[in-house]
């Protein structure tokens, strides 16, 4: 039973331990390890345009292959990482970036959650403050009289 449990745990943990799927083929790689490392960095930040939520390094799609090759061509030509990202954005738009840029049209995306959190915190604080028990006002003379009468019975 215990062995079975251990096996299950290993099976569950295995995907997390394995390196992320890599679609980069050996024939695409650059001979210069430093440039290749930069290409991988960039590739992980670029979205494959036909697979919704996979980076071009993880995707086996034809277009992803072409994009990986273009990234390496730009790097060999001497482009900085930012220039390579700009090259791709000029062709595919912001969609191609896995991390969306901070700008007017993405304000809601970036600030929506923090603002909601602040609003919720404010609402909770206000609610708590309202619930603070204030001492009741002292009894009036009439009330005290009535109380005494009730207690007499």
């Amino acid at each position, binding site marked *: 039973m215990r062995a079975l449990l251990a096996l299950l745990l290993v099976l569950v943990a295995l995907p997390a331990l394995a390196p992320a799927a890599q679609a980069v083929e050996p024939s695409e790689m650059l001979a210069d390890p430093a440039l290749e490392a930069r290409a991988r960095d960039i590739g992980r930040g670029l979205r494959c*345009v036909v697979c919704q939520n996979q980076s071009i390094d993880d995707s086996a799609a*034809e*277009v992803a292959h*072409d*994009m990986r090759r273009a990234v390496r061509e730009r790097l060999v030509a001497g482009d900085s990482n930012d220039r390579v990202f700009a090259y791709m954005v000029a*062709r*595919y*738009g912001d969609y191609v970036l896995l991390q969306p840029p901070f700008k007017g049209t993405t304000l809601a995306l970036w600030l929506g959650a923090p603002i909601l959190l602040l609003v919720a915190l404010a609402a909770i604080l206000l609610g708590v403050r309202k619930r603070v028990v204030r001492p009741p006002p002292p009894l009036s003379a009439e009330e005290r009289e009535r109380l005494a009468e009730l207690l007499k019975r």
Partner: protein
Amino acid sequence: MRSNRLLFLLPLLTLLVMAGFFGWSLLSGRDPASIGSVMVGRPAPALAAPALRAGDPALTDSLIRSGKPVLLNFFASWCAPCLSEHPLLTRLAERDGVTVIGIAWKDKPDAARAWLKKLGDPFKYAGFDLEGKIALDWGLSGVPETYLIDAQGVVRLHFRGPLTERDVSDRILPLLKAGS
């Protein structure tokens, strides 16, 4: 006390806002999977491609900046949706006199030529892009994709996926009529 009662309306209000958004999404034909195109409204990227048909001159940039609107279509013989839009391209070329340029994407030129021979060839000019390098400059994601380039050489429409009858009648033809 009154503000508390209004608070009960908040979930209902949220529901209404969400229902409104979903309704609008359904009715307006919004496609959340669409990746859009940054090409539309911009001058067309430079065009240079080897000719597909033997004896033709290579495709040059002057073809899409000739002062006449053109339709640029990326296709492949292995692509099934290309088959479905082929009759529309043929009709645009033959009935409406549109200049259609075709580029075979990631397709062996032999296979593309045989495909056109079998189905008919709507392309006034035809080239090929075996490695997909030209396509990248056009922001292509696959085949088929079609661009309408106006007389000034500006991309006006970009269709990802096969053209439909509605694309032709509601978007391509009106723009061509307005332009000429």
